[in-house]
């Protein structure tokens, strides 16, 4: 029965991915302002790029043929040539993916752990000072534009206190004689971007955890657990949190979109050479093939993240059957 459920979810995701591809195609081909025409007119596009683009889009053939050519190219991993980088889009994306994974991964782990802990404490100590402080923190970080928070952190920690570098991934021009000193330099560059992204996410996770847990705490089985003679710690850990964690899994997946939004801002502010920064560059250089490629990749990752969350959920919640 679980297998059927998983299969259904996989199929649904595939359909959504197909939709995304179609959407993506039309977005960049049919929209007013016709990006394709702009590509052809773009003075920065080389003759080679124009030739490549013509071939890539199958210009001059019927629209459905053009679509199939697009699909075929996509399956081969051919996303066209980047205007700015004058290299295949897929290569450019590939070269920028690791920094993002490291930064986002660290920020996610940090904010999930801290956010959930904060939410649990907040719910358990509801109405106390700790709860009010945690709640205010969450609501404020939720309302702060991510990039602005980054600017504040830069001006305090980098420019004011001179604790961390303002931008980049490694200090330019510096030669490293061993791995440890290089990792140290890397970490000091990583610190502020991860902190910025985490601060924004912690509030979101804490808030949701708090609300779900408050819901769970009113359930009858909480009274049962208390009547059995267990102490609060045990009840929270064994009965309340496992029930509250289920919605959290879904939230973490849905949040992928939000995290990507935050990543674009953070990478832009800190010049972190990842996908977010790349998107910003593609945007300002109106590098449509690159923009389209990144957008497609991001969307598909979000859909896959949701799929993984659905499957995990079905294994954690015994009530999900088919």
């Amino acid at each position, binding site marked *: 029965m679980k297998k059927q459920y998983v299969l259904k979810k996989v199929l649904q995701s595939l359909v959504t991915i197909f939709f995304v591809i179609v959407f993506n195609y039309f977005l960049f081909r049919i929209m007013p302002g016709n990006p394709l025409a702009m590509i052809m007119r773009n003075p920065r596009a080389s003759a080679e790029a124009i030739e490549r683009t013509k071939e890539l889009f199958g210009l001059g053939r019927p629209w459905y043929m053009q679509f199939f050519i697009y699909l075929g190219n996509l399956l081969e991993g051919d996303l066209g040539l980047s205007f700015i980088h004058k290299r295949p889009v897929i290569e450019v994306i590939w070269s920028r993916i690791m920094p993002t994974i490291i930064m986002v991964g660290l920020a996610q782990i940090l904010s999930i752990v801290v956010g959930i802990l904060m939410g649990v404490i907040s719910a358990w100590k509801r109405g106390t000072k700790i709860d009010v402080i945690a709640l205010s923190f969450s609501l404020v970080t939720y309302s702060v534009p991510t990039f602005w928070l980054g600017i504040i952190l830069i001006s305090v920690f980098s420019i004011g206190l001179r604790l961390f570098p303002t931008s980049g991934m490694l200090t330019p021009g510096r030669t490293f004689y061993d791995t440890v000193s290089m990792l140290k330099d890397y970490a000091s560059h990583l610190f502020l971007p991860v902190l910025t992204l985490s601060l924004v996410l912690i509030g979101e996770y804490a808030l949701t955890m708090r609300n779900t847990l408050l819901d769970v705490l009113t*359930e*009858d*089985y909480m*009274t*049962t*657990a*208390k*009547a*059995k*003679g*267990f*102490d609060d710690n045990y009840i929270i850990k*064994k*009965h309340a949190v*496992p*029930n509250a964690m*289920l919605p959290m899994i879904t939230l973490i997946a849905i949040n992928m979109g939000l995290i990507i939004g935050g990543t674009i801002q953070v990478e832009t502010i800190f010049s972190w050479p990842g996908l977010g920064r790349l998107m910003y560059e593609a945007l300002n250089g109106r590098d449509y093939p690159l923009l389209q490629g990144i957008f497609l990749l991001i969307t598909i990752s979000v859909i896959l993240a949701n799929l993984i969350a659905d499957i995990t959920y079905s294994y*954690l*919640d*015994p*009530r999900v059957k088919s």
Partner: protein
Amino acid sequence: MELLRINNLKTYFNISSGTVKAVDDVSLTLDYGESLGLVGESGCGKTTTALSITQLLPSEGSIVSGEILLEGKNIVNLSDTEIKKVRWKEVSMIFQGAMNALNPVMRIGDQIAEAIILHEKLSYKDAIKRVEELFQLVELEPKRISNYPHEFSGGMKQRAMIAMALACNPKLIIGDEPTTALDVMVQAQILNLLDKLRKELNMGIILITHDLSILGETCDKIAVMYAGKIVETGYVEDIYNNNKHPYTYKLLSSFPNIHKERVMPDAIEGIPPDLINPPSGCRFHPRCPYAKDICGKEEPRMELANEGHYYACHFGGVYNEK
């Protein structure tokens, strides 16, 4: 032998709009192997009375005064750690298992075993063995201990709840509406099972319900509560056939009796009183068809009708005259 004695218990709730006198001067006694039915309309304080025994009150509620003697020992002033040892080991509870009293994401066997491990200090393996025995005792298939609550029917969940209540051989079991939301056949089965186990294991049982009709066969004694006070208490025979309080009389006649002529059941006029500002004198007087001047001015004392049968009314049994 006296198992439980409650003397002048007062449990109040402090909420924003005032102090709710949910239980106001309640006294009752229960012997080993005896079963007491606690009846009354919703919100009359019967559940609060039960929750007061093992101090399971929500945070707004507290025991203001009175004694609760379990085997002669006052358990009202026990410390947090001490009362936790009383819970389930000495006094266990049967909640509405059909509703949400079982944790949906934990195997039923584990939910029972955890209580055994806590109080009896058994290993997990031995605890599970005991759960299997308990399942047999409540006529459930032992192999179903690894099921989750959603895989059980309402009646099965209620049996599992009973198995859970029996897990640590308690001296007293409190059943809070244990058969509500079950169909009549299942209701009878559950009540018979409880009755049988009580006699076999010589436990005291307090059954809380708003349905007087199910108590006749399963209870030795009945206490009728109205607006936070016990208005009449006695053996089943006395309450059914020789009741003295107009509220008891009204409550009984508000249930259709299949043994008598078919008549429309009598509804009790009016609504239960506000427990923040309860009526003066006899709390039932605003709704009592037999009320006279004195009823609104003077609170009636408990009068003895015959051995073990008490009532609180200025005009006991007035409705039988004329």
